[in-house]
């Protein structure tokens, strides 16, 4: 007997909205990635809550996959960030890369 299920869901929704805000508003590529992490985490929280609500193990298993996806996404995403930074010298999401692969500046 802990808390009502919908409190967990609302908490997850608030976290998700925060992550979404971070992703949409920050003018920095790394912060965008960080926002995605927050959203993934929020989804994981909702899954764990759902697993408890229906006493099903699937929810927890999905969280495991969320973790794996997050790890994969971060490794590739950060490698991309570094590559973009090297090419353009900036982490501004508005950076334009010319098709030839050299920084616009």
């Amino acid at each position: 007997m802990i808390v009502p299920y919908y409190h967990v869901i609302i908490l997850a929704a608030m976290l998700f909205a925060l992550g979404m805000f971070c992703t949409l508003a920050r003018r920095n590529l790394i912060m965008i990635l960080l926002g995605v992490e927050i959203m993934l985490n929020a989804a994981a929280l909702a899954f764990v809550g759902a697993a408890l609500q229906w006493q099903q193990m699937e929810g927890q298993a999905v969280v495991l996959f969320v973790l794996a996806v997050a790890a994969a996404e971060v490794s590739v995403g950060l490698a991309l960030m570094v590559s973009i930074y090297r090419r353009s010298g900036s982490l501004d999401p508005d950076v334009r890369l010319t098709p030839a692969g050299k920084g616009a500046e």
Partner: protein
Amino acid sequence: MTLFAILFYAMAALVLLSTALAATRRNMVHAVLCLVVSFFGTAMLFYLLGAPFLAALEIIIYAGAIMVLFLFIIMMIRTDRQPDKIFTTGRLIAAGSICAVFLFALVGLTLEHPGGRDLLMAAQASPAEFGFYVFKYQWLSIEIVSMLLLVALIGALLLGLKLRRRSTDA
């Protein structure tokens, strides 16, 4: 209000606060550190919600590995040229309104549903049970996910190699 519930709400407040801080820090190192705190809180929540194994994973992978990776990258990239504003006003308004509508809709949807009012039954899936379940019923997904990780590894490696080649060219 049981002890569990008190712990839950305290943790929820901690998580929300630290996440909000993380989303608004100008210094990215601070943001990442706030997020680490948030993930510790989430791990605690996982424990309360009956997933001790996932709580451990959350700390080890999220707070331990992923966030540290972020820190590495942030330190690798010396961002002296921070933009003056971390938000532009137009973007702030647009993003804020989208998120507000989203939150509003989601909370409304959740509250509307009567099934969520019941208190959660406390239960715990021990790591052994969890492992048994995952490898009995979800083994294929596990294999696929491990494949995904391998692909990500190779992708990151490839990007790194390209970088090195370019820097030796230059």
